[in-house]
């Protein structure tokens, strides 16, 4: 595995997030391009690089400014990187529908953990608002992932 090949897009994705996140914000919800890249790394290269990239990118994202829960982004990126790595090389051994449902599930799980920790107060007091926040946050990123997926397929070798 060539780490340099991972590094260039990494810088690009970080700056894409840095520049576009604000412009694409809808009602305070933004797409997470870094997460999409970590999922790609996991699916194309396995758990090991995606965990490492996830950790450092999470730290970078938090360093750009977070009010509280510093380190949460690293934690969930590491988790997502690790889980997505399990799908590495599985496209041809799995039923394609299951393969796609699994990565969608990983993204939903990622945002569930994120929302659960960040909005734990809502989870206890306003369950409906919590679920809506979770659905909107994950749905927005999944929408972009769906578009990218048509340009660069998630399954390697296609």
């Amino acid at each position, binding site marked *: 595995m060539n780490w340099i090949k991972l590094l260039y897009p990494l810088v690009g994705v970080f700056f894409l*997030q*840095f*520049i576009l*996140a*604000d*412009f694409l*914000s809808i*009602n*305070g*919800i*933004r*797409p*997470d391009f*870094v997460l999409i890249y970590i999922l790609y790394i996991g699916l194309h290269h*396995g*758990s*090991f690089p995606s*965990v*490492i990239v*996830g*950790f450092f990118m*999470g*730290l970078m*994202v938090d*360093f*750009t*400014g*977070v*009010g*509280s*829960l*510093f*380190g*949460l*982004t*690293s*934690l969930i990126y*590491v*988790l997502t990187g*690790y889980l997505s*790595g399990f799908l590495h090389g599985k496209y041809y051994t799995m039923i394609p529908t299951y393969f796609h449902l699994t990565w969608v599930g990983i993204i939903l799980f990622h*945002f569930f953990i*994120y929302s659960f920790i*960040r*909005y*734990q*107060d*809502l989870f206890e*007091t*306003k369950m409906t*608002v919590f679920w*809506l*926040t979770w659905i909107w*946050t994950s749905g*927005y*990123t999944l929408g972009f992932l769906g578009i990218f997926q048509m340009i660069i397929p998630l399954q390697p070798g296609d």
Partner: protein
Amino acid sequence: MRSLYLSILRNKPHIAFVVFFSLSLNILLTGDSSPSLNLIRGKTLDIFSFLYSPLAWVKSSFLLEEENALLREKNLRLFLQVESMLQLVSENKRLEQLLEFKRESKLTLLASKVINKGLHSNITSISIDVGALSGVELNNPVLTSSGIIGKTILVGDRSAVVQLLSDLNFRLSVRIIPSEVTGILRWVGPNFCEIREVQKNAVIEMGNKVVTSGFSKIYPRNLPVGKVIGITDVRGSFQKIISVRVNDDLGSLINVFVITDQGDELD
């Protein structure tokens, strides 16, 4: 030895996961209160703010024309208001002298520009272009012309991070006027907050103004926060829940003010 090495090599994704997950968890649990990490965060924030400043400039240039038109309209409205208020001021002065009221000191406001709203999926903080060198300190209240939006939580030399109302850990002691009922405000949804633990017999009406209570050491009293848009009686409880619409759209902040000195407001 060789088998151990091979075993590590075979299981390196799992080992990496355990190591980095533990490291992240440790940062998450200790990061917000670690002075050394906060120092690094402050320095890094300055760098990112510098990198983001051209983008912030481009963005504000796009919005300049629209903002200019809005300001012209607001200026005219304010001019008309000032005329009527000038008469009220002279009357107020006369009444203050009569009642021997202590004249309130003015707050020292520092204007700043929003340079970054973080990279997270939800906006819970913003970065502003003023820092310790401009006199900003930790826990300085941050507001717009419409009201309170948050407080400074991390201060670099030339930039600072503002924890917004929408952050999980943000709470604001507020008062509802004219009933003078106080409570703790917490964020619920986009520009929508709740005040819980309000006595059921409190007389509150829709449209009542919500201001800061002044009980907190951070926020001076009577700063606008929002207005009441809903009142819910909780069955089987002695309390009711007040829904509040905050004055600002937190997602579209461009310029904010930091209160760097509260004078004798807290006295």
